[in-house]
């Protein structure tokens, strides 16, 4: 799933979307403004009561316009854009006859074009919004009306209504959970649409309401009053009080199901609508669209401003020139143009001329650039959506670019913020090892007593005795089975705990297999492990848990359930076994649990701690396991207190927490579990590629520090060449800042070796998650592929852009307005190639481009000028007439621009051909049409160029001029590029110029020598070791070869070869190579990483 892009979009606009609820900044347009709500009071099942507060109903409007308001509002919005205002300003200037130097349609044509296009796009968007609004508003939900469940459209749901939700249904509004099919009024929701997390979350109803169950008549009589906060956009906070039957119950976020969630694993639940429609937290989060500008946008704005300044300067210079000319020469032309008195003043004439030139030269300011950039981005986003390589078949999800504004930024990313679990790792947990009573299981020793990899050689432990065994479960230590069979009580207790202490729900499917529904995959892994080892969790009721212990069904009475939260970091159950003993089983974070152990556990604790460090060192997720035997009397007292606390109104949570603390002590340590969360496929390559792309990665994790560091090594984020990994530990923002400052000081002492370091950021507080952008590994892939495609395919779009937005104006205006081009084309070429601006990411290149433009314009003007001066045509007629000159220049221009585009296009697809040749063909056909007799006959005023193309373009000397102009303007560019490529080649130049070298390199790589050498080099690093463990036969072979090769090769040679192979490898890594060689490519990436390290080292020393 391409959450990266989605999240870029979502975070960019600060909104949370759901299918069908398109974003919109215009909720304010539609919803009626109300006086500010301070507090919300809702009474269940009482529409009349709630009506007096005028709460919005559940209808949503994300649309901006309706048929009547579309035109005014849309135009108003559009004319807030600088580009359109600029055009409008020009249009007004042109309506002043003294100033007007171009006919008005030169401006109105592009303006109308742009405005219409935008309007059509907006209208389409809005149409879809209307459609999706309708679709969402018309969804059905079951509402309790008049003591009956009735089907009602979403939009008719009102605040205070009680709704029934069924499994896998979208939640219609923000609900207070009243009751559910699950015990304790629990229900599971998926909040992926809200926060992107795919883990199921649990919500539980107040016990008083959960008793209502599915009893319609009782629910209909429910008349609780909820007093709560006013609508807001905080997804993780809710405070309120439910008053019912004379008692008050405090409400928090745990009792609320938000619109946009999906009910999962819960066959039904009832909820009372608290916030509806636009007041829901989902909708409150939308609508605050903050337009994000990319760096190109910013650069473009700056450049456009500069160009505008340039235009003003040009206007002033030309106006001064005009004044001087009027003063000295123009005066004498009074005879021919009896000018008005006012115009006789040369200064005033200059002033008017200034504005005329502003109009004439308006096209210098590449306003169309904005439009074209938009189009290019749109195109890119389509290419992203269409890309099969970014299709994730696992979830049948294609990539989706939810915003078009940030596409090119994908090629300029500096930092990637990533979650660890479920992002770097698969979030599929496998029980790997455990430590029970001081003994490690799940570790295989070979003959020499060396630890070897578990995945190798040994056969998996068979569980044929156990019909419920999960075939996918593999555990490679027979010792554990032996211990179980021998009846080791600690081992049994350990497994029993795993089978009892969890929140997993079980279900039997039609085939009679047990299906576990889990909230957290860690728990799932542990319960499944217990199941495979003979302690099978069978079923649970609110009061009992039934497990099968090595074939015997045992039912435990569930006395208390001490749930998990982020502060407790542990969970416990208190059960009574059939023998009548009361036991507390607890599992949780080692640091927390170890504090609460009975002092007699000292020795075991030390041993287990060591084991835990070992597990963590392998990047495994660990949990400590402990139990406590409880005294019957003690428990009864405690339970009484717990019931009191539960009933309390004040400080209820605190009291409960205190009681939990009270009973979870003096625990007896059983051992620890280690669960592996496998790295997702491709993580290593991705992280390596990202590092090579100089993208820094921040990972957020809640793991132990050792686990985090090891995962860092495992996925190549941390490598051996990073000598010191700074560990920044702090519990508050201030502490962290202080630590960072220290680390920074250290760094500068150490010659900035940190330059491409990454940061593994431990989450100390779960709340910090909020500020972190997530993405999946496929997302990373998307990034790289996309960044790549941008450079390759930009050309295409530039071509498209030039044709559609530049050439068309050139054609249209060239014909209508040649009268100005000749005098002032000085500055046009830069405008004819504004597409280049896309490529030009810096100002330096911009100025080269301007210089190029000025040169081209000089050539375009002075060669025809010189050639036409005082020259007659083949038939003796003068050809230096104004219109022929204009046609010649326009034709030269189009040809020069086309040749330029052709040179810039290195990737000629059929589309490029169509556009390049098509633009020339279009130019000529339009030229001849405009100059035709017929058109002149109909509109003699508008088409005075009749016959011009015919006469001019049949003259040999005019073609000679065009040819010379083209040669003279293109040659320097080619020469410049040639020298640049030769003297300062960029990587892509090398790639293009020395394909044969690369081919040669691929061959040499097939021989394996170089690569294995470098793989062996890498192998010395942690990442290499991890690779080894992952048992890639290719790598193994490479390692062997590499070791040999290294011995053979002299280190001096190595250095030189390293430089060579570095560039070769880089080429290969960039190449799209045959799938057959993909394996090699992967090695190349790894080897390249190694090489970079190697090459960098001697340089820095």
């Amino acid at each position, binding site marked *: 799933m391409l959450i990266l892009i989605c999240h870029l979009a979502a975070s960019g606009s600060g909104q949370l979307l759901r299918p069908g609820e398109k974003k919109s900044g215009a909720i304010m347009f539609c919803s009626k403004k109300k006086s500010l709500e301070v507090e919300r009071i809702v009474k269940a099942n009482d529409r009349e009561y709630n009506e007096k507060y005028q709460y919005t109903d559940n209808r949503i409007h994300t649309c901006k316009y309706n048929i009547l308001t579309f035109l005014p509002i849309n135009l108003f919005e559009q004319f807030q854009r600088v580009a359109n205002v600029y055009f409008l300003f020009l249009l007004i200037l042109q309506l002043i006859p003294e100033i007007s130097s171009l006919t008005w349609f030169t401006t109105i044509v592009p303006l109308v074009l742009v405005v219409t296009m935008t309007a059509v796009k907006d209208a389409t968007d809005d149409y879809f919004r209307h459609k999706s609004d309708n679709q969402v508003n018309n969804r059905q939900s079951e509402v309790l009306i008049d003591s009956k469940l009735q089907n009602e459209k979403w939009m008719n749901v009102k605040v205070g209504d009680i709704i029934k939700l069924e499994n896998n249904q979208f939640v219609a509004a923000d609900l207070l959970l009243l009751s559910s099919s699950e015990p304790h009024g629990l229900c599971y929701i998926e909040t992926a649409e809200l926060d992107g997390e795919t883990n199921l979350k649990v919500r539980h109803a107040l016990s008083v309401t959960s008793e209502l169950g599915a009893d319609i008549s009782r629910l209909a009589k429910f008349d609780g009053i909820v007093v709560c906060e006013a609508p807001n956009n905080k997804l993780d906070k809710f405070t309120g009080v439910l008053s019912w039957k004379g008692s008050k119950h405090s409400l928090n976020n745990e009792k609320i199901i938000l619109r946009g969630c999906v009910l999962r694993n819960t066959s039904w639940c009832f909820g009372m609508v608290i916030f509806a429609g636009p007041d829901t937290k989902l909708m409150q989060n939308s609508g605050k669209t903050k337009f994000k500008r990319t760096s190109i946008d910013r650069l473009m704005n700056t450049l456009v401003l500069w160009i505008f300044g340039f235009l003003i300067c040009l206007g002033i210079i030309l106006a001064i020139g005009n004044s001087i000319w009027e003063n000295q020469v123009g005066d004498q032309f009074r005879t021919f143009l009896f000018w008005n008195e006012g115009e006789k003043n040369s200064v005033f004439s200059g002033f008017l001329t200034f504005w005329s030139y502003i109009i004439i030269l308006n096209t210098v300011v590449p306003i169309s650039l904005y439009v074209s950039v938009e189009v290019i981005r749109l195109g890119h986003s389509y290419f992203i959506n269409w890309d099969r390589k970014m299709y994730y078949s696992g979830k049948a999800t294609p990539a989706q670019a939810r915003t078009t504004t940030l596409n090119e930024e994908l090629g300029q990313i500096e930092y990637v913020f990533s979650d660890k679990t479920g992002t770097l790792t698969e979030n599929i947990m496998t029980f790997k090892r455990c430590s029970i009573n001081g003994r490690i299981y799940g570790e295989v020793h070979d003959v020499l007593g060396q630890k070897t990899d578990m995945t190798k050689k040994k056969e998996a432990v068979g569980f044929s005795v156990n019909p419920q065994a999960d075939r996918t479960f593999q555990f490679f230590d027979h010792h554990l089975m032996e211990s179980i069979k021998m009846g080791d009580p600690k081992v049994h207790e350990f497994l029993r705990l795993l089978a009892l202490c969890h929140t997993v729900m079980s279900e039997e499917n039609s085939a009679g297999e047990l299906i576990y529904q889990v909230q957290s995959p860690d728990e799932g892994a542990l319960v499944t492990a217990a199941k495979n080892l003979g302690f099978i969790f069978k079923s649970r009721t609110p009061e009992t848990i039934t497990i099968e212990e090595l074939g015997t069904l045992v039912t435990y009475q569930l006395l208390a359930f001490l749930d998990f939260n982020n502060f407790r970091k542990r969970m416990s159950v208190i059960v009574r076994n059939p023998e009548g003993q009361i036991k507390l089983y607890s599992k949780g974070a080692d640091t927390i649990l170890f504090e609460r152990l009975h002092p007699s556990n000292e020795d075991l604790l030390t041993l287990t701690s060591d084991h835990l460090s070992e597990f963590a060192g392998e990047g495994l997720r660990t949990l400590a396991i402990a139990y406590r035997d409880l005294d019957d009397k003690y428990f009864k007292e405690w339970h009484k207190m717990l019931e009191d606390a539960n009933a309390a109104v004040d400080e209820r949570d605190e009291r409960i927490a205190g009681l939990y603390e009270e009973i979870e002590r003096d625990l007896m340590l059983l051992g620890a579990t280690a669960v592996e969360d496998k790295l997702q496929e491709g993580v290593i390559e991705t992280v390596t590629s990202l590092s090579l792309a100089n993208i820094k990665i921040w990972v957020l994790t809640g793991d132990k520090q050792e686990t985090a560091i090891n995962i860092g090594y495992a996925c190549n984020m941390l490598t051996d060449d990073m000598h010191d990994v700074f560990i920044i530990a702090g519990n508050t923002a201030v502490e962290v800042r202080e630590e960072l400052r220290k680390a920074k000081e250290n760094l500068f002492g150490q010659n900035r070796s940190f330059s491409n370091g990454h940061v593994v950021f431990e989450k100390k507080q779960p709340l910090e998650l909020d500020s972190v952008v997530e993405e999946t590994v496929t997302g990373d892939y998307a990034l790289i592929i996309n960044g790549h495609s941008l450079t390759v395919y930009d050309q295409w779009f530039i071509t498209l852009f030039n044709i559609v937005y530049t050439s068309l104006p050139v054609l249209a205006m060239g014909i209508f307005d040649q009268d100005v081009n000749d005098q002032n084309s000085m500055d046009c070429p830069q405008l004819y190639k504004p597409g280049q601006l896309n490529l030009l990411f810096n100002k330096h290149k911009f100025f080269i481009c301007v210089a190029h433009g000025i040169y081209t314009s000089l050539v375009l003007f002075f060669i025809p000028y010189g050639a036409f001066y005082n020259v007659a045509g083949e038939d003796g007629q*003068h050809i230096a007439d104004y219109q022929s000159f204009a046609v010649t220049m326009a034709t030269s221009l189009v040809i020069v621009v086309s040749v330029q585009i052709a040179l810039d296009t290195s990737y000629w697809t059929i589309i490029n051909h169509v556009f390049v040749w098509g633009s020339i063909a279009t130019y000529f056909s339009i030229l001849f049409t405009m100059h035709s007799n017929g058109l002149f006959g109909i509109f003699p005023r508008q088409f005075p160029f009749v016959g011009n193309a015919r006469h001019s373009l049949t003259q040999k000397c005019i073609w000679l001029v065009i040819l*010379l102009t083209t040669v003279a303007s293109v040659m320097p560019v080619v020469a410049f590029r040639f020298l640049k490529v030769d003297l300062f080649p960029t990587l892509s130049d090398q790639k293009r110029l020395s394909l044969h070298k690369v081919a040669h390199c691929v061959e040499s790589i097939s021989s394996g020598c170089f690569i294995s050498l470098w793989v062996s080099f890498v192998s010395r690093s942690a990442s290499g070791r991890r690779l080894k463990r992952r048992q890639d036969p290719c790598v193994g072979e490479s390692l062997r070869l590499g070791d040999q090769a290294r011995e053979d090769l002299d280190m001096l040679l190595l250095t030189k070869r390293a430089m060579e192979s570095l560039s070769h490898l880089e080429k290969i890594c960039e190449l799209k190579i045959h799938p057959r060689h993909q394996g090699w490519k992967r090695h190349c990436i790894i080897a390249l990483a190694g090489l970079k390290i190697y090459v960098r080292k001697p340089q820095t020393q």
Partner: protein
Amino acid sequence: MKRKSQDCQSRLPDNSAVKQQQLPAYQLQLSANKILSGFFATGVFCLGVGVILLLSAKTIKEVEINYTEKCANCAKLRENAANFDKECNCSIPFVLPETMKGNVYMYYKLYGFYQNLYRYILSRSNTQLVGTDVKDVRNCAPFKTSHNGIPIAPCGAIANSMFNDTIILSYNLNSSIHIKVPMIRSGITWWTDKYVKFQNPSFQNLSSAFAGTTKPPNWPKPAYELDEEDPGNNGFINDDFIVWMRTAAFPTFKKLYRRLHRIEHFTEGLPAGSYSFNITYNFPVNRFQGEKAVVLSTLTWSGGSSLFLGLAYMVTGAVTWLAFFSMLAVHLRLRERKMFFLQQ
């Protein structure tokens, strides 16, 4: 997730070449060899064209006689607009040292006349000139109407400032025999101008077609009297008028006036000898400090004489070659260095 798997197939993007950005493409690879040989070839081509152009320009014979100063008295007379009805003739003798072979064209040439002035260019009415509406003077400011509001035909500054000298070339066989060199007027305009762009209003009688209009202030006679002998050359379709109305791009320009009619003595062209221009001097140039000249010229395959294009080709060719050699040098040196590195 379950609901998603159903439409799994449909969500897989199409595997079309366009969508997957895998259109068959030709990658333009400009290798050093290609570029260098391209430069070399371009250089050769440009130099070749340049040489041809220069050689052919050399064959052109051209005589230009500036008569601004030579007809000083007339010029002085014209300085005062009040003398517009006074005729002034001026004869300028000259000697043609060599025969001008082939077609000979006679041009008038103006210096410092800004026919490309923005407002000047616009000051015309194409609808009037095409004969559809003889009273349409909309764009003709400042020469739309006369003082009493009658529309001017042809209106506008261009028409008003029409060049109206008459130039007659005589071949002086000896001191007494002066043969008027036969000149023809046809073919000095574009076909489209003569038959499409300029049309007289359709009336039996041309003068009645111009009824309700008045002549431009600078003109001695109305448009329908420009050539009363030849109806195909009268009114708006007068050749001299059409030529004038095709405005020049630069302040110095020459416009085709007449072509040599190659008959009798002149079948080969203009023989060497003494000639004279008899000029009826009407067009005032002193007022704008301009000059005027009459030009006789032959043509080559590429048209009239100009060394510029040939020279420009030569220069471009030379520069291209220069670039070629320097690029070659740079390239070879770099390659040597690379080889050196590789061999080590």
